[in-house]
């Protein structure tokens, strides 16, 4: 049976395929049977653990620790405010640049069910529902006739500015609580998102500097990139922790709107500085690849029109270079998201730190399997969605590309 060129194997075909590939000869038959048994045992083991012997108490009793660490409950409204703003903005942007297919909406709704069953109870459930409503509201607003029609381009520009503004806004709001109390998924997300977004412009500048015709600039950029890439992140984190205060001084110093040092509260900021340095070097190499992928004829055509260097970079070279490396950029984003778990060495309680704390609690001593499985699931959910989002962005931007 063929539908539009696709073979749909019926039972006979499947059986023949199995016979030719799985059971051709006694050696392959033995292998197949052996593997089936092994997989079965493994599945049984995991299933038995997850559904029978595991004490998920360790998770449910520590929900707050996993998600926000020591952030005080009374101040949690700050986090919710940030979530609401980002959810609304996310819905708006989704509407402005794309649309949500019914399939995706249904899938998303189904995916939310376990969240409400296992994670969000009481007021948290209400607040979570509220943030979904904020997303929907933003989406509906973006789909109003005015915004999806006449004012679409203006709305898109405004949305981009709102996203940029949302970063300092979020930080200031969250910063009402000393950063040493931040933890769990909150801390992981803060380190990742701020790390990447602050590092990004530096990465682009480093990549451009590396391609510069001024030897001093080029040498500095090459030196920075190669030195940072030659040192493990964990070392950079330690250096940021111990050397940065020496370099910048012990007083409270403001860098890019973020207080970087100042007595004992600054561990998160120092870790962030280390992550920024690390990410900038890697992003620079990715962007460099993108710059090299833009044919020389593009710059020449732009020059021939009388465009100046900044116009050429901003309108011709960077848009093409960055578009070409979106998958690599998202890959870097995802790997940084996971790498932030190294801040554990600075005694910060990120997602991994939370897991370790829980398995040290008297009630849950030795419950590593549960906690690690749980955070692995969270890491996976976030990373998976990032990767899906990147494919979506690529598709949306891909219009008219070669």
């Amino acid at each position, binding site marked *: 049976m063929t539908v539009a060129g696709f073979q749909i194997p019926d039972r006979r075909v499947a059986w023949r395929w199995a016979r030719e590939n799985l059971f051709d000869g006694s050696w392959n038959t033995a292998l197949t049977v052996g593997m089936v048994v092994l997989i079965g045992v493994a599945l049984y083991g995991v299933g038995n653990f997850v559904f029978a012997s595991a004490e998920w108490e360790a998770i449910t009793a520590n929900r707050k620790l996993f998600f926000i660490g020591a952030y005080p409950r009374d101040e949690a409204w700050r986090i919710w405010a940030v979530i609401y703003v980002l959810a609304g903005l996310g819905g708006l942007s989704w509407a402005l640049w794309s649309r949500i297919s019914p399939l995706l909406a249904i899938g998303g709704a189904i995916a939310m069910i376990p969240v409400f069953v296992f994670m969000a109870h009481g007021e948290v459930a209400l607040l979570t529902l509220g943030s979904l409503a904020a997303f929907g509201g933003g989406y509906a607003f973006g789909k109003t006739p005015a915004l999806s029609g006449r004012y679409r381009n203006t709305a898109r520009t405004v949305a981009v500015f709102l996203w940029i503004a949302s970063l300092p806004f979020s930080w200031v709001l969250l910063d009402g609580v000393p950063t040493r109390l931040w933890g769990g998924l909150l801390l992981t997300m803060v380190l990742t998102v701020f790390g990447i977004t602050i590092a990004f412009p530096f990465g682009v500048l480093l990549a451009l500097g590396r391609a510069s015709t001024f030897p001093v600039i080029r040498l500095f950029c090459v030196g920075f990139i190669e030195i940072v890439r030659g040192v493990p992140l964990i070392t950079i984190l330690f250096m940021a922790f111990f050397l940065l205060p020496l370099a910048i001084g012990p007083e409270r110093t403001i860098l890019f709107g973020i207080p970087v040092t100042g007595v004992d509260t600054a561990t998160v900021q120092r870790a962030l500085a280390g992550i920024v340095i690390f990410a900038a070097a890697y992003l620079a190499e990715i962007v460099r690849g993108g710059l090299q992928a833009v*044919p020389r*004829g*593009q710059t*020449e*055509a*732009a*020059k*021939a*029109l*009388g*465009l*100046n260097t900044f*116009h050429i970079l901003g*309108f*011709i070279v960077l*848009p*093409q270079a960055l*578009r070409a490396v979106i998958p690599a950029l998202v890959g870097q984003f995802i790997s940084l998201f996971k790498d932030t778990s190294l801040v554990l060495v600075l005694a910060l309680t990120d997602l991994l730190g939370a897991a370790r704390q829980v398995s040290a609690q008297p009630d849950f001593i030795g419950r590593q399997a549960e906690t690690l499985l749980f955070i692995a699931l969270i890491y996976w959910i976030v990373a998976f969605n990032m990767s899906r989002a990147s494919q979506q962005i690529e598709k949306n931007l891909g*219009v*008219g*590309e*070669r």
Partner: protein
Amino acid sequence: MTQDQMSGRDGEKRVGTRNIIEARDVEKWFGDFQALRGITMSVKEREVVVIMGPSGSGKSTFIRTINRLEEHDKGTIIVDGVELNNDLKNLEKIRSEVGMVFQQFNLFPHLTVERNITLALSHVRHFKKADAHDMAMRLLERVGIPEQVDKYPAQLSGGQQQRVAIARALAMQPKIMLFDEPTSALDPEMIHEVLDVMRELAETGMTMIVVTHEMGFAREAADRFFFFDEGVIVEEGTPEHFFTNPQEERTKLFLSQIL
């Protein structure tokens, strides 16, 4: 203008008396390799000059020195009264007055046809959006593809892309147009649509330097003809001179190969 002499085979277009391009003893090295070995050429207003010559003879390098995509190492180049050198303050302004069309089109693939044409209008000429749009539409009509305004370059045929590239260059209202083998990357059936646009442009009195091996175009549109080889001008003259009575052995050999 009263001083202008009649020229061109059809006798309609008037070639000016003023040299809008003056190149004297231009030399260019790429490392140890000398690509231009003393090129002297002047081009008058509204003149159409065709350059031919074997591959690697320095044709591209020479016309690229005229909008300073290549910096020459020796000699002088004066474009519309401005000498090109490193002291030049306003290179962008000079460049915006010299349009260039490339063999590979070099359209901006991430921008629509309209944006390709209006980008420099907005940011170099500071046109308002509506004015830039009008200009783009006018030029697209002139090159015969107004209906393609919202497409992306990849959605067009080669001939259409090259016509957009010509429209893009013309949008800056250049005084001079440089063409570097504009039809060499095209399928044969698309060559004529680009040549038609160029012929029409020549008739309206645009100053043009065209590197091409299209004999038909050269015969009809060229006022003067240059033959390059190994970085020097081997022979120059009117098209008749070339087609009926070339003097140099190298010219004869080359012409016999491509005719």
